[in-house]
């Protein structure tokens, strides 16, 4: 009798120890990681938003005819920066999609502006414009990387909280909810133009 009770008592620490390898400790780690990757995403989008007024000012000086394109960029920027998603909102798909949509619209109007610039050779050889363009391209690339890293972190976290045995820890201890990944693998407008040195498009 006493020995059976002893065995039953042993089960508890044994389960605790073995579960600690998966879930009890790793769920908060995975969650923090996904939130940190989200912060990277936001920083890069913020950097892009910070560059845009400079771009608009520079283009204005050379291509006043592009007024409507410039206005569209300024408006899309205002809309995009008004939507902030905190790390705790990441479990709300509607909020993440709203953010993604607003940033996507900004990407598109920015893409249209950079295409229209092709018609102004003086602007295209302006050193300030070239420096700005390279920073925007670099930022677009960093956004793509940050989005990919965030999606991987979310995927890892979401898989963990749904997989036995971590799902026990997720449900019992943390009340974990899945986080929302980005839907689109960035639309074409977000792809930075590539430096090509041949006749064929790079």
């Amino acid at each position, binding site marked *: 009798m006493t*020995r*059976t009770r002893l*065995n*039953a008592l*042993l*089960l508890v620490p*044994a*389960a605790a*120890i*073995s*579960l600690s*390898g*998966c*879930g009890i400790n*790793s769920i908060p780690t995975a969650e923090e990681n996904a939130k940190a990757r989200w912060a990277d995403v936001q920083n890069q989008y913020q950097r892009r938003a*910070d*560059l845009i007024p*400079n771009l608009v000012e520079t283009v204005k000086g050379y291509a006043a005819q592009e007024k409507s394109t410039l206005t569209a960029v300024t408006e899309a920027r205002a809309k995009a920066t008004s939507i902030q998603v905190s790390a705790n909102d990441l479990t709300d798909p509607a909020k993440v999609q709203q953010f993604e949509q607003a940033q996507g619209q900004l990407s598109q109007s920015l893409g249209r502006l950079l295409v229209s610039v092709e018609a102004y050779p003086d602007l295209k050889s302006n*050193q*300030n414009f*070239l*420096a*700005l*363009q*390279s*920073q925007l*391209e*670099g*930022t677009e*690339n960093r956004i*793509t*990387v940050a989005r*990919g890293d965030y999606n*991987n972190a979310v*995927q*890892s976290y979401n*898989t*963990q909280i749904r*997989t*036995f*045995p*971590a799902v026990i820890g997720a449900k019992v201890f943390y009340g974990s909810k899945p986080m929302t990944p980005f839907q689109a693998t960035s639309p074409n407008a977000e*792809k*930075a133009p*590539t*430096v*090509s*040195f*041949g*006749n*064929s498009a*790079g």
Partner: protein
Amino acid sequence: MLRFALLPALLLLTVPAACRQPTPAAQAAEPHFPTLTGRVVDQADLLSPQVEARLAAQSEAVEREIGPQYVIVTVSSLHGLAIEDYGVKLGRRWGIGSKARNDGLLLIVAPHENVARIEVGYGLEKRVTDAFAARVMREKMVPRFKAGDFPGGIEAGSAELVRRLRSKQTDREIAVEDRMVI
């Protein structure tokens, strides 16, 4: 009795095995990258042994004297990836530069896709800025690549990159010189 005694032990053994992290799908989709055999990896066979030796010596001196690791790679195929995507993946795979300082610099030339790229570790972004990398590409490399002079373009671009890595300027002075928006 024995069955009961075994149960906790069995739990201990089996549960941790069941919770190994699933591998992210993204990793499985990685293309076959060239092997990091040295400071110059000339998979596309664009460089003579003499040029390779000069570039390798330059890179070795920079690392020994200042720290950052500069690697030059020519690739025979990007496997359908955009060079930006390929560059980040290759940089992460190879782990160029110190892990703590993230000070790797990678020059990638893909002659068959007609593209090239300078990939900069986060720790070097204030030295080799976006604007500087773009200028080196535009002024020193692309014109020579267009003329078919790959060794000339790579050497001219590398000279600029190395000069910048060795620069005594402050980050602030560099940002001003490169017309960076801060």
